[in-house]
């Protein structure tokens, strides 16, 4: 169970595919228009329940409980070997030591 007052993240469908704008590419037309938002859980709940949250501006939103205590997961990515080659090219070009 996730306690009332926990900071959580919910997901909500705002518009079903048939409620969306008429002016959309085919692929987008087929999928719902959704929202993710964070806030404080209003009542105790379990993951995937439909819940209400209070956002930091004091608004109430409802949606499916997807995550409690949501961390930031974005990072500096994977090792990209091409970056080393890129550097090599720039240094060689700039220093002119590639026997041009």
């Amino acid at each position, binding site marked *: 169970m996730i306690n009332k007052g926990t900071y959580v993240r919910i997901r909500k469908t705002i518009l079903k595919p048939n409620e969306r704008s008429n002016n959309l590419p085919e692929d987008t037309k087929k999928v719902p228009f959704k929202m993710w938002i964070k806030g404080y859980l209003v009542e105790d709940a379990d993951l995937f329940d439909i819940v209400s949250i209070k956002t930091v501006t004091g608004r109430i939103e409802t949606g499916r409980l997807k995550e409690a205590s949501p961390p930031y997961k974005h990072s500096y990515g994977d090792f990209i070997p091409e970056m080393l080659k890129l550097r090599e090219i720039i240094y060689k*070009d700039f220093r002119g030591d590639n026997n041009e």
Partner: protein
Amino acid sequence: MNNTYQSLMDRKNEIIKKSVGLDYSKYELEGIGFDFELMMNDQGYDIETIKKIQSENMVGNTPLVELKNITKYARKYSKPGFGARIFLKDEAANISGSFKARRAALSVNQAKRLGYKGVIAATSGNYGAAVAALAAKEGLECIIVQECFDSRNVCQPEILEKARKCEAYGAEVVQLSVGPELFYSLLKLIEETNYFNASLYTPYGIKGIETLGHEIANDVKELTGKFPEAVVVTNAGGGNLTGTARGLKDAGAVDTLVIGASVNLYGLHMASDNDFNRKSFTTGHTGFGIPFAVFPDRSDVPRSAARPLRYMDRYVMVNQGSVFFMTETLAILEGMERGPAGNTSLAAAFSLAQTMKDTDIIVVQETEYTGAGKHILPQISFARKNDVEIAFGNPLSEVPGKTIIFPSDGSLLKHKDIEMNDLRKTYLKRYKDIELSAQDYQFLADELKINIEEVKDLMK
């Protein structure tokens, strides 16, 4: 109140009017046009007032640096006597890390002045962080609405970072899936909260950038004794270019060429769920740059104050691989680690400088902060995970959404012109079947920076 898509869209004019505190009907002319200059000058913000508001908020007066190593690098590929001096305005030094703070400073000031309790802005970019930071300083509530993820719930790393930054300043971040219905959600939130709509396209959103043009003109003149020959501006919604150009002209730099630069994303549909995560640039690209240039009033206000074709002398594209290449060059040759998207104009300048005299000066008018998510490594990692091939070769052969091609040497980093008259013709298409008055033709001539005869020729 009925909140179906259509009924809310039908109420959009009244909702927007209330949320920007501005009656646009005042500026409408008979026929198709409106009085752009009156709209811009009618809001009580002259350049000195703007400078004062900004400097009190840690905005503006950013360093102008000469990129001596990058200039030397570009000259390697220039004919004798060519290779302009490249200068860079380090806009990452603004509060919140980008030039967008200039725009936000005025919008938030106006919201406060008019007594709104909070501000709301629809943006997946640096503008969100800028509005959030300045709202925090003014004690206003803030909601940022982002287009963020596709139907698989996968989000661009760059946008996740911007969400984090907004939250760091205490803002609420509403994240949406791909689609133009973002505007629907924005309207719904405005109606619910009665917050000020800190749109990127109001006169405040544009006038805030005029100081940037001013600083560039004055700083370059002080350092070198003359105004720059060219300023390159990364172009998306057109505001950056409009505001910078207006500032340059106001400072007297009337002969300085204003060159727009965008990342080439031809072939990717901006409202496509499938295409959304196949690009490595979420702004500064042709997918925004071209539609907003040829139809500025597609924005979230009745009359956009961002009207790039009024000021643009030339418009060039560079590819994604070239911008990443220059981002790395800026770090390892100049010691400046800055966010990729803002370096679009730098990549263009590297190539453009080679076509200019070595006594000329070309200014890259912005940088932006970099960080986790919003950085070459996560953005390339993300592209690879979304089946985009990473290769070396001629960057002009890059196919957006399929490949990212890094130049296999600096000589291959080239810009490509977008024909100004093609843009103008597209702009004019919507007026083809309308009987136009002399005043209408004058409006179109002003909009497109050409004379009435040229307008008529392009409409044939």
